[in-house]
């Protein structure tokens, strides 16, 4: 399994890199509005009402950004958690841990593609 992960490393690294760069750029504003401002009622009236939120997200660019907010943090997180768990649990379990974390990220990404296409 470790051999397979090593062969996939270029793809994983690309997604991880995109996650750390683009994901980090997108996250603060998303968290401030959808994560905190909207639910706590701190935004102007109707800013995240269903019709408006749906219109923003179903715009082609909106779909792409939403997919980025789903998939990129997953790959960034999976790669860093694998590295952290490697330090703590030793590298014997690396193949299993890495496969599990990347599987979560891969399934989440595929579901994300499905979700933004069927908005």
């Amino acid at each position, binding site marked *: 399994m470790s051999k397979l992960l090593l062969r996939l490393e270029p793809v994983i690294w690309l997604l991880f890199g995109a996650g750390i760069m683009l994901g980090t750029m997108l996250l603060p504003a998303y968290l401030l509005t959808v994560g905190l401002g*909207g639910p706590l009622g701190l935004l102007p009236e109707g800013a995240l009402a269903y019709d408006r939120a749906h219109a923003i997200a179903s715009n082609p660019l909106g779909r792409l950004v939403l997919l980025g907010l789903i998939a990129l943090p997953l790959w960034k*997180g999976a790669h860093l958690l694998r590295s952290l768990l490697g330090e703590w649990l030793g590298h014997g379990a690396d193949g299993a841990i890495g496969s599990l974390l990347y599987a979560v990220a891969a399934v989440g990404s595929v579901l994300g593609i499905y979700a933004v296409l069927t908005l």
Partner: protein
Amino acid sequence: MARASHPQAMTPHRPGSTRTAPPQVPDRFWTQRRMAIYQLFDATGLPYMLVGLLALRVAFALGRGPEAWAALMQDFAHPLYVAFHVLALLSALFVGVRFFRLFPKAQPARLGPAKPPPRPLIHVGLYAAWLGVTAILLVVLGGIWP
């Protein structure tokens, strides 16, 4: 107890004539300042993964309709979700500050005939992009435009 580190850690590119002891992870490695910050950076992976999964929930709720969306917004107002989103925000800021400081140093010295811009310029450019993306998203998602 010190334990064996990654078997390939510190392996020379070509086998040399000098024999070296197998690399060991030092005792209490996590207490060393650099290592502690490094591990904190890695630990941000957990909030990032959870944010990705929650964004998936956001997308599905938008697809299901107004009731699902209202229920999700109500869920997100729960103190546990609020606390998590604050933690995720701090994680993103920590990652951004640290990674954007590292990024200029990690550029190749030259790529064919092209040289990268001076490091401070890349650093400032990354912050400008970060602020720009944040401002645009805040305007759109905050209900100011369109």
